[in-house]
Every structure is written in structure tokens, then in C-alpha cells.
């Protein structure tokens, strides 16, 4: 069996697949990627299945070696990638051979990056998934973030071509769309207007569980405690500080703050990738409109994922654009 060795690890490097489904009613967070499309592309670029496990990193990747040849791809955003000091591009696959050192530096204008390796990471699944949930210590490697010296089993690399995107991944632009509810009626008209006027600054209080936003104070007229109910990725909770907390991939399954709105699925990866200190505004859409957006985007991605371009094998150092 092939092995990936972590020589250096960025501050938040974890094993993630598409997440853990079917256990929310037992208190188990879905975990999974902060930026799902980036993970899907990383896997497809190396010929993996969509559900294969990758490494997700925040800000900085780390350095890695393998025992047997693999193809790899790094996605998420623009980032410096080198093999033994030679530059490689993100959003396309490359060869990594035993003895070579792959180094992934800092993401620019993005926060979450993905490293997919052909064969996928084969740590033992826990509750049907390999995703790490750090807070409850399950999945990935011993349920924790990775550190230098960690060795991860890799699946078998099938023969396959090096691939690239035909055109850069196009992300939605403009205000982040939100669907009102489920507890919008805990807030008055003024609070709702202030919420839509914004703008909000992405603060440094952010991790895989949640992102705290700073801006106009949003106050509920009947207090900020509700009888706890279920949460989804994108739920915007308003605690008594009046500062919105957007719940993300590693959120707890239930929460006791009123939720003024929910971020549309198409815009949640973009919010996750907003650098700290950037400004965001919200725009209200109906549930029906948000569903339309999601259906259209799923089709777009399916087409883009199915039409990756084969790179010429003999390009100099494999670093053709």
C-alpha cells in the first residue's frame, strides 16, 4: 500500500471527504469540506471518485512525500506549489514521484485549499466517512489535525492522464444571497433592514465550525435564547452580542440562538473563502430562488467536471498553463 508522509503541516490540515451523512439526529456533525466545489475538482483532476478523501488546509498547506508515484492536484485558490523547488500550478494535476518533496505554500485571496492524491486517502472510515471532526475527535487520523511525521495510507493509483480545467472555476459574485428564516420573525423590521444594509466584516474568529461577522448590531426584540433546534451549514445565528455567527461545515447539530437567515448553498463556499477583514453584504432571495440557483449551479459544475482537459505529457516540467 502507498503512503503519504507529512513533512510539515499547516495550522489546520485535516483529512476530509464529502462528509458524514445520516447521523445528524444522533448529534454527529456532517463535517466535510468548507469549499465543496474545490474538493470535487481536486478529486476529478487526479481521476478519483467524488467521495474519495483529500487533505484540506487553512491558509498554508505543508510539505509531503509519497512512497510510490501518484498524481496530485491542489485547488481552492491561487497558491505557490513546488516539487523540489520547481513551480507547479494549482487547478491541474501533476506527477509526484518517490523522493520528491511537494511543498504547498500560502493561499492568496482564499482561505481553504485541497490536496487530492490519486487513489485517495484511506484512513479508516468512522460512521461511514473519513472526514475529520476535530471537536468530537472522530474520522481522519485519530480524529485530529495532522502534524509533521504523520503517515497516511493511500489507495491504488490507476493509470490516467494529467488533467486541467478548460477555464478557471467561475464563482458567483455580488452580495451573498440569504434565504429569510427560520427565526426571522424574532427580529423587527429595523433589525432586518440593518442586516441587509450591512456591510459586515469577516473577523479572525473563524474556523471549520463557524465564522463571526462584525457590522451593524442586529438585535432580536424578544431575547437571543430559543429552545434549541436543528442547524444547517449556512445558518446565521444571532447571539446577544448582535454579531452574526455563520455556521459552517463542522457546526454543532443543534443550537439555541435565533437564526435570522440561511446563506444560499451556492454562496456558502464563497463566504468560506473570503479572506479575513473583507466586507460582505447580504441580499435576500426566496427559498424557491435559492433552490433554482443551486440546481443551475449543480448542472454547471457537472458539465465542467465532465469536461476536464488532458494536459500534454511532454510539456516542460509538466508546468504548462
Amino acid at each position, binding site marked *: 500500500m502507498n503512503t503519504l508522509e507529512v513533512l510539515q503541516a499547516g495550522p489546520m490540515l485535516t483529512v476530509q471527504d464529502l462528509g458524514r*451523512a445520516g447521523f445528524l439526529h444522533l*448529534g454527529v456533525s456532517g463535517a466535510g469540506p468548507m469549499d465543496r466545489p474545490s474538493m470535487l475538482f481536486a478529486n476529478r483532476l487526479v481521476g478519483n471518485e467524488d467521495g474519495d478523501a483529500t487533505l484540506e488546509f487553512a491558509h498554508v498547506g505543508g510539505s509531503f512525500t509519497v512512497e510510490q508515484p501518484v498524481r496530485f492536484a491542489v485547488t481552492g485558490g491561487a497558491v505557490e506549489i513546488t516539487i523540489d523547488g520547481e513551480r507547479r500550478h494549482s487547478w491541474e494535476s501533476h506527477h509526484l514521484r518517490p523522493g520528491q518533496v511537494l511543498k504547498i505554500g500560502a493561499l492568496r485571496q482564499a482561505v481553504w485549499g485541497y490536496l487530492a492524491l490519486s487513489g485517495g486517502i484511506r484512513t479508516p472510515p468512522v460512521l461511514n466517512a473519513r472526514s475529520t471532526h476535530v471537536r468530537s475527535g472522530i474520522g481522519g487520523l485519530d480524529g485530529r489535525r495532522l502534524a509533521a511525521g504523520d503517515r497516511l495510507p493511500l489507495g491504488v493509483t490507476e493509470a490516467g492522464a494529467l488533467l486541467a480545467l478548460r477555464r478557471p472555476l467561475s464563482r458567483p459574485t455580488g452580495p451573498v444571497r440569504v*434565504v429569510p428564516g427560520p427565526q426571522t*420573525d*424574532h427580529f423587527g423590521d429595523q433589525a432586518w433592514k440593518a442586516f441587509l444594509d450591512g456591510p459586515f466584516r469577516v473577523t479572525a474568529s473563524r474556523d471549520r465550525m463557524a465564522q463571526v461577522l462584525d457590522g451593524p448590531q442586529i438585535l432580536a426584540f424578544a431575547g437571543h435564547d430559543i429552545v434549541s433546534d436543528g442547524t444547517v451549514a*449556512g445558518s446565521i445565528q444571532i447571539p446577544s452580542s448582535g454579531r452574526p455567527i455563520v455556521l459552517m461545515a463542522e457546526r454543532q447539530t443543534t443550537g439555541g440562538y435565533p437564526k435570522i437567515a440561511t446563506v444560499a448553498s451556492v454562496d456558502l463556499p464563497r463566504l468560506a473563502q473570503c479572506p479575513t477583514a473583507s466586507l460582505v453584504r447580504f441580499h435576500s432571495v426566496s427559498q424557491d430562488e435559492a433552490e433554482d440557483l*443551486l440546481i443551475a449551479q*449543480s448542472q454547471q459544475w457537472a458539465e465542467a467536471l465532465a469536461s476536464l482537459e488532458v494536459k500534454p505529457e511532454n510539456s516542460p516540467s509538466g508546468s504548462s498553463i
Partner: protein
Amino acid sequence: MGMTQAASIQFPRIAPCGDSALVVELSDEIDEATNQRVVALAEALAQRAISGIVETVPTYRSLLVIYDPCVVRGRGLSALLLDLLAQDLSSSTTARQLTVPVHYGGEVGLDLDELAEMKQMTRLELIALHSAAQYRVYMIGFAPGFAYLGGLPEQLHTPRLAVPRQRIEASAIGIGGKQASINSVPGPSGWRFIGRTPLKLFDPSRSEPFLLRAGDRIRFRSINLEEAAHLDAAVACGKTVEEWEAL
């Protein structure tokens, strides 16, 4: 959009949670009848195996329904849920009760003495009160297998700590406001803790990783240190020590 006052919300109601989930709110109170309906609605949906429903999350007074909008749209699903709510929903699952052995006090039950003092009773009186009541698992949430229990005697209601503690062990028996709990994984908590159980509510290495589900009944039984050690050893060997009874 027009905002109504929270006080005037009519239940049941169905509210969107983005583009892939709806929440069916049956009430904004914690009571047993509401929670029974929530559990029954979750069962009714599971039995009907409606295509497009991905999973459901029963909580105290609401049911979160997660769906795939590429298969079923929220609007259609809302109508279907309203129809279902108009029917007589009752749980078909046999109610079951677990007796949870508790070693009160000790390192994990670090608040027992202070709580007894606060309530002006002896520790034995407090233990008797806590273990005489019947509890209901209102929901499993917050962490894997974490059980929120209703049925805590009013005399034991206690506000949470102003500053949460950094680490409370799994299997700690807690009190937070009107609720009781059995912890399932170690972690920070602002609740008060009065004992520990040798039972493990969550163990991913077990063939049945989760001990409890919403709707289960719980009774606590006081055990001494010797029995706790005996049960710990049995649990460590993977033996089943749970005492279930059908109700």
C-alpha cells in the same frame, strides 16, 4: 417583508432553512406532548421513505427536514408535511427505558456537594431526588450521542455557570437550568455535574455506536465505587451491561 411579533407565531408552522432544509416547528416550549409529536413525525417520514428527503433531526419542539432540491422542491415538501401534520401521528416504536448506573460525586461529579449546600439538603437527599425521577430523552444533539433529558425535579433546577469549564469527561451526569444530561464526549461545558456513569453513550468502535435515541426513558440508579469499577471493567472488555426494559 412583513415582520410579525414573535408572540403571535401560530404553531405548527414550516419555515425555510435555506435551499436544502425546512423546519417544522410544533411549539416554542419544552413539553413532553410536543416532543412526542416531533418523534412521531420523524418516524412517519422515515416509514414513507419520501424521495428527496436526505435526513431529519428531531429536537425538543421541532423537526429539521433536510432535502435535495434537485429531487424535491421545498414548496412541495412543505405541503406534504402540512398534510402529514393534519393526520393522527403516534409513535409505533415501543417505548423503552434504560436504567443508568451512576456513581454520584467523585472527581467527575465535582459539583455534588456545592449543589447540595445550595439546595439545603444532604448529598443523600439530592441523590435520592435525582434518581427517583423518570426522564425523557428529548433530543440527541450538540455532540455525538449527547442526551438532553427532560423530567428533572424542579428542586434541582440550577442555572449554568457564568464561565464554562474547559474539560468535562464523557459519561458525566449534568444539570443545566431545567435540563439534565448525560455527556457523551469530553469537552467544555457550563453545566453542573453530580456524578458519572460507566456506560458509554457514544463509542464509534461499537457495532451500535449510540446508546440512546430521542424518545427513550431514563432512570438513574446510585451505585458505589466498587460496582462502578466492576462495570467499568466490563465495559472496557466490550461487554453489554445496559439494563433496558420495554414500557
